[in-house]
Each structure stands twice: as structure tokens, then as C-alpha cells.
């Protein structure tokens, strides 16, 4: 038989509909594992698909209580709590909220939100799992690394160079783009030696102009930006040099704290920032692994750095911290807060509604609809050709909401599973209450929240073991 020319009896199909095409979707828009991972490229889980409307109340409180209060106001709030009051566990959308809040602040460095009063950047950090962030020193390390990840040091260096450039070489044209990518390119260019060489600019002059900045005068000579003009051949320092100084040069925790809570603030101020918002997600991971003593020590050091210590930050309140607390955490850290005096500065459970406590509430029916609609709209093949919620009916969304106790992550997981099931069921065009009801058994199993019963638990058969030859 000639295998080169013989064709199969059935020809290959010319085309077939995509798996989710009949629902007007090009993929399953819901995440199979609904846990926010900021570094992922999948927009289902990196916080990109986000309906701000759902958390508009929390956002408004944030804006009014923090973002719009001038940083120059000595009484501005320096520590806030986002407290989950819902008692439904993980997946209420706090991480997604924070990631989007960070983006909203960094979009225009808060200038738009505060009507030009504040120029602040936002940092997002998460304690390492498993109790590795236990001491305040390790928390400071985490804070510093979140700055590196956000590239804020590079940005500040570029701002300083840009300003110096316009003074030293007023005739050199420099166009700064609008888009994120163009901005990034500009920052990278301004921080590279080649860029200056290519344009035959003498970097030493620019470096000298930078160190004239009044905020940089009190810094120690070992601070990276001051080093660049100390040698014969001047070259622009970069973020990596700061990282090297911090990790290799500063060994003692006290030195590192000085670096983060005083020296770096000077750099940020020189670049025109008057504050920063530090969003600490999953704060519970710190006290959960601490002993009572460690909790009190941590709280005392936090208080010293934020309010009462000698650092520049304690004096002017540059960094504003937001701690995200799950429902049980206030009780966990209450005693430490009391003993360290934090409870007087920023009580976690104030007796009356306070601006610094932002309750993070349980989602409602309307929110559930908004949430699913947002995800669906991101994956529509033809955005005009659907009512937004299809193939889900509103009734089905209500059932999903109730079954998952309006926990955002569980709703998304259920939606994912239901859509998968509908796609594999021929002729299933709609996901309505009846369909959810019929799939209930599989769903509740898949959500796997319960501990298996004793009948399912595996156990050694002793009699067999005793009789078996080894």
C-alpha cells in the first residue's frame, strides 16, 4: 500500500467550532485555581480582570481617608487596616483589590486622585508563607524588595537625571512618551551610560547637578547616588547598586532600617514624591507564626518606625501602611498591639467607626452578577452579541452565590466548573438553576472543603502487616 498518497477513508474535518464558541466565548473566562498571582501573565488570576464597582465603597473610603489627605498634614493617617469582616475565609477578593489599588495609585502617582496634593507611589507586599517573615527586620527586607520589584528606585533616579539634564543641557531635546512602555524605555535610557555617550553628554555634570538637591545633603557618603561623582570616571548608578549596598553593605538590621526609613526617603523626596502607600496583603502570615513575645516586639518596632522613633519616617510619616487582616487576626494581635502602645496610635477594633479601619464586606447578590459579567465580557468573541451574563441566567448566579456563601474565589471556581460541564454536555446552551442543581453533587465534591469521613480515611491493616513476610 502506498502510504504517501493513500488517504484515510474519512477526510479530516475542514472546521469545527471552538469549545466555548457556542457561548460566544473564546475560552473559559474563569480561573481553575482562583488565587491572585500578580506575576502571572494570565489575566484571569493576575488581578487584571477586575470589577472596581464591586469594591467601590471600600475604594471611596480609601480615597477619602488616605489618598486625598495631604501628606504635608502632620495628622495624616499613617497606618490603616483593611479588615475582612465576612468570616468566609480566603477568596473574598482582597488581593485583587490591593493589586488594583496599587495600579490605580501608580497610574498617575496619586496626583489625579488627590487633585495634585500628593505625589505618592504604592507598593504591594506579601509576607513569605510558612513563617519565614517573622521578625521586623525580615519585614523591612520584604519592604525593600517590594520597592525593587516596583522599580521605584530606578524611576526616582531617572526623574533626578531628567531634571538635572534640563538644567545642565537645556538645549538637548527629550521627548517622554505617554504609554507605560514608553515611560519604561525612557527610565531605562536615562539610567544607562550609553545613552549619554551616544548624545555626547558628560554625565559627570549631570551627576553633580543631582547632588545639589537639598534633600540629598544630609545623606551619608556611602549612599549610592552620592558615590557616582566621587570617582574620576562618573557613571550613572542604578537600582542594582542600591540592592547591592543593601544586601552586601548593610548587615545589621539597624543599618538596614536606617537605610529604608531615612536615607531612601530622602531620595524619594528629592525625586518629588511626598509619600508612599505600602499595601501589606495577608498580614496574618506574620503573627500566625510568632510567639507572644515576638508579636509584641514586632509591634513595638513597627510603632517606632511609623510614629515615635528617630527615623525620618517616624517624624514626617512618609510611608503609609495598610495591613490586610482576616477576620480572626485582630484577636490574634490585639494583646501585642495593646502592650506595644500601637493600640493607642491606631486601634484595630476602635469603639466607634474610624477612618483608618476599612471594613471589607461580604459580597452581595448584585456583586455576584457584576463579577461574573466582568469575567465573561473579557472573553467575548463578539461583545455586541450577548446580554452580558449568558450562558448563565441570573437565577443560576444567585444559586452559585448562595452555595459559595458569596465568596468571590469559590464563585469563580464554581462558574469555571459549570461552564466546563456545560461545554462538554451536548446541546446545553444555558446554565440555569436546574443545571446548577443537577451539577451540585459534583461541585460540592470538587470544592473539597470537608475532611473525609472515617470510612474514606486510609488506615494500615495491622493483621495483614503482622502476617505478611517482610
Amino acid at each position, binding site marked *: 500500500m502506498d502510504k504517501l498518497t493513500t488517504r484515510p477513508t474519512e477526510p479530516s474535518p475542514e472546521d469545527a467550532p471552538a469549545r466555548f464558541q457556542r457561548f460566544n466565548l473564546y475560552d473559559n473566562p474563569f480561573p481553575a485555581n482562583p488565587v491572585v498571582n500578580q506575576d502571572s501573565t494570565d489575566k484571569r488570576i493576575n488581578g487584571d480582570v477586575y470589577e472596581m464597582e464591586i469594591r467601590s465603597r471600600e475604594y471611596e473610603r480609601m480615597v477619602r481617608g488616605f489618598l486625598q489627605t495631604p501628606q504635608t498634614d502632620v495628622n495624616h493617617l499613617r497606618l490603616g487596616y483593611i479588615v475582612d469582616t465576612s468570616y468566609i475565609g480566603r477568596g473574598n477578593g482582597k488581593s485583587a483589590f490591593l493589586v488594583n489599588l496599587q495600579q490605580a495609585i501608580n497610574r498617575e502617582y496619586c496626583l489625579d486622585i488627590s487633585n495634585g496634593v500628593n505625589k505618592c507611589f504604592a507598593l504591594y507586599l506579601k509576607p513569605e*508563607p510558612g*513563617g519565614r517573615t517573622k521578625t521586623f527586620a525580615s519585614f523591612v527586607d520584604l519592604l525593600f524588595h517590594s520597592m525593587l520589584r516596583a522599580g521605584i528606585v530606578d524611576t526616582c533616579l531617572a526623574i533626578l537625571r531628567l531634571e538635572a539634564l534640563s538644567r545642565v543641557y537645556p538645549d538637548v531635546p527629550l521627548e517622554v512618551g505617554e504609554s507605560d512602555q514608553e515611560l519604561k524605555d525612557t527610565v531605562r535610557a536615562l539610567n544607562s551610560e550609553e545613552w549619554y555617550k551616544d548624545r555626547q553628554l558628560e554625565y559627570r555634570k549631570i551627576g553633580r547637578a543631582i547632588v545639589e538637591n537639598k534633600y540629598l545633603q544630609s545623606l551619608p557618603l556611602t549612599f549610592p547616588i552620592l558615590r557616582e561623582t566621587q570617582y574620576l570616571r562618573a557613571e550613572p548608578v542604578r537600582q542594582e547598586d542600591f540592592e547591592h549596598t543593601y544586601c552586601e553593605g548593610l548587615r545589621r538590621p539597624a543599618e538596614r532600617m536606617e537605610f529604608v526609613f531615612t536615607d531612601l526617603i530622602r531620595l524619594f523626596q528629592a525625586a518629588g514624591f511626598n509619600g508612599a502607600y505600602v499595601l501589606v496583603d495577608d498580614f496574618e502570615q506574620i503573627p*500566625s507564626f510568632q*510567639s507572644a513575645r515576638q508579636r509584641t516586639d514586632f509591634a513595638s518596632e513597627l510603632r517606632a518606625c511609623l510614629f515615635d522613633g528617630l527615623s525620618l519616617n517616624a517624624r514626617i510619616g512618609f510611608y503609609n501602611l495598610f495591613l490586610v487582616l482576616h477576620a480572626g487576626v485582630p484577636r490574634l494581635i490585639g494583646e501585642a498591639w495593646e502592650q506595644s502602645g500601637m493600640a493607642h496610635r491606631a486601634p484595630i477594633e476602635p469603639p466607634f467607626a474610624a477612618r483608618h479601619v476599612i471594613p471589607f464586606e461580604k459580597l452581595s447578590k448584585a456583586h455576584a452578577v457584576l463579577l461574573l459579567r466582568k469575567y465573561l465580557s473579557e472573553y467575548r468573541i463578539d461583545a455586541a452579541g450577548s446580554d452580558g451574563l449568558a450562558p448563565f441566567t441570573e437565577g443560576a448566579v444567585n444559586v452559585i452565590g448562595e452555595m459559595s456563601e458569596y465568596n468571590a474565589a469559590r464563585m469563580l471556581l464554581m462558574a469555571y466548573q459549570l461552564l466546563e460541564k456545560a461545554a462538554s454536555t451536548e446541546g446545553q446552551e444555558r446554565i440555569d438553576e436546574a443545571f446548577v442543581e443537577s451539577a451540585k453533587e459534583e461541585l460540592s465534591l470538587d470544592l473539597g472543603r470537608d*475532611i473525609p469521613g472515617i470510612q474514606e480515611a486510609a488506615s*494500615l491493616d495491622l*493483621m495483614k502487616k*503482622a502476617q*505478611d513476610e517482610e
Partner: protein
Amino acid sequence: MANAVPLTPRISSVKRFYFLEYFYVLLKSIEKYADREQIFESFKVLKQKHRLGESKYRIRFDIEDASEELSEHQISRFRYTFDEVIDEAREYDLITEQQGTLHLTPRGAELLGLYEGGDVRRFNVFLFECMEKEYQEPFRYLVKLLYESSTKKPGLLIFPTYSPRQLGFRREEITRSADIMNYASVLVDRLERDIDEHLGMQRNLDEHNRELLARLQSSPSRLLPTAPSEQFDPRAYNKIIKRFRDHWIGYFLNKIYGYEQSLSSFERWTYRGKQIGIVYATDFYPSFEGRIVYPTSVVLGSAQSRDFRRLYEYRDGMGLFVHQPDWESISDEFVKELVNGYFTLRRSNRNYFVNLSSLRELVCYSLKISEYLFEEFLERAYRLNLSRKLPIGISLEVDKLPEETTAMYLKREPVLVDGRYRNIIAIDVAKRS
């Protein structure tokens, strides 16, 4: 020897106390004093010191302060226990009575020495041998009963119990006779379902239910009024619910598993066996409402596996072997089960810490090991973890979980590791550098 006539174990004559440590308390008191009253005084003090109560649970000091004045009722209970321990110690030839004074025999002194030398395990085994001899092999009977009554899950006996709250009733709603009857019928449905599900049997419990209700209504106790709409004495609530509990545990024991004696004798043998490491019993297995009992030993002619230790040789050549693997042979499996159990418990709990006693129940059942082996192995794993020689990280704390109430810790023994009682545990499986 193999044809020896099987003995009829005297299981019902067991004396009325649970803790084997009572023997130590008695022997120690007799070592110091000869006069019965003085011995009793010392016995009272030591009993409190070792947290020995009259039930199978240890006394918690935060609840019952040792320095408090004892009521007459308490004293009479203590004296009863005291007399029971003396009787049993005499049966084992540990003490003798001479003209109204009590003295240690050489055997008694030997046993006391074992405890004081820190070898509690050998102390328990010594007593086990006494019991096995004196009561005509009660533990052999018990282990055999367990294996014979449950073949689906070898040796596992379940005793489901449900309080009204667990069945969705609210305490304040239960005031009339009719409310109790309502609870009774929901309970019967649930138990029938459990029997079907766990044991694969069809049982109709209506008649036994009627019997129980009739007993509650009849004299002398008359806990329940006969007219359904009539209210019962609210002070009797706990007593009534306990009757339900005991009745149905007794039903399972006698009618399903075929134990021919009283529930209380069964309880005493199982909890004594638990201290020796022969059987395991718990009321707190996660995800199961009620009690479970299973053997951690076997009765065989010989055991092929080296993980078994012969505790006793019977007249017919059979032996009782306890499952007692070495750390070296079980370490990997133990750590694996610890991690599995930890993640199982975390499924229903977002906290990084889980209740250590719950984890103990899961691991002990899975590996069929005794409580003291669990403690020993956990201690070893914890020390390896401290010296960074374990692939996982273990964090043990004395604190309690925020969502758990003190009541949940009342009856559950904490786990002693590294010299401190630990209540909660967290595990980090990320490979450490």
C-alpha cells in the same frame, strides 16, 4: 498446651477506675505511710498532682483547683476510688494488709521502682500482665472482639453520637416532652443511616427507641413527663441527653458488636488498653461525631513483621503483639502522614495552625500506633526539624486556635513535646535551604 481450655474472661469484675497511674499513687502513698487514713490523705494529694480524675479524662487545673475545699460528695467518690485501687492492688499481690495497716510487697516495690525510674511504659506493661492473668485474658478478648466485629475496616468500631445541636435543634427550643421525642426520632433516622453507611447493615431502631423513651418516662427517675405537651425539668436536660448517648453506644456495643457485658466495663478496658498501647479510643476523631475504637495490636501465634512486640504469651501458644515500630523504620511514613493529616485538617480551616490533637487522631488511625508512640515520634521529628535535618518545617505552639473555645480543649489531652504541652501545629513543606 495448644489444647488448653479457653478461659472465660472476667471482664465485668474490673475495678472502677481508668488511670493505671492510680497504682503508682497508691504505692507511693503506702511507701510513705502505713496507716490507712494517712495513706488516703497522701493519695488525695498525689491524685490531684497527677491530674487523675474519676472519669477517663484528666483533670484540667484551670477548671478544678486542687487547693479548693473538697465537698463531701467528692470525698466519698475519692474514697470509693481509693478502695477500688486497694482491692485491685491486693489482687495483684502488690500490697498486703497486716493488722489494719498497709504495706508494699516486693512486687509492689518493684512496680513503684519502674515508675519512679521513669519507665512508665514498663510500668504499664507490668500491670497489663497482672490484669491479663488475674482477670483471665480480658485484653485478648477485647482485641479479638474488635477484629471479629468489624471486617470492613479491620478492627474499627464506631459509636456515632449526636447531640441535639448537631442535629440542628436549639437548646432553648427543647422544653417539652414532645421536643425530646422529636429529637429521638431524628436521631434514630440518623443512626439507621450510619449503620447502613458504615457497617452495611439494615436495622430498624424504632423498638429500641421506644424502650428508651419508656424508661425515661417511668419511675424511679421520671425524667420525662408522659404527656407530650408537658414541660420537663430543665435541670434534667443534660441527664436526659446523656441517657440517649449511653443508650445508643450501649446498643451498638451489645446488639451490633456482640459485647456481652456492660458499657462501663468496656470503657474501662478500652481506656486501660489505650494507656498500654493495645487499643486506641477517641471521642474526637475529626469529621466523625462520636467515638471510635480500634486495636493497635494483634493476637497471633507469631508476627512476621519486626514492627510488632510480643507483650504476652498465652497458654495456648498465641501471643499479644503490639504495633511498635522503631523510629528508623517508620520515620518517612510518619512524616508523610503528618503532612497528609495537616493538609486534610487545613481544608476546613484557613489558618496555618491546626489543632494538634486532631492531627494526632488522624495520624494514629492511619498508622495504627498508640498515643505515646505518636508523642515520641513527633518529638523526634521536631528535634530533627530544629537541627534542620527534616525536609519539612514544623512549628508547635502552646496557643489555642482563635476560633476554638476553651471548652474544646477541656477533654482533649494536649501533646507533650520537648517538655511543653502543645496545642497547635503548623507545617511548612517548602524544602528548606
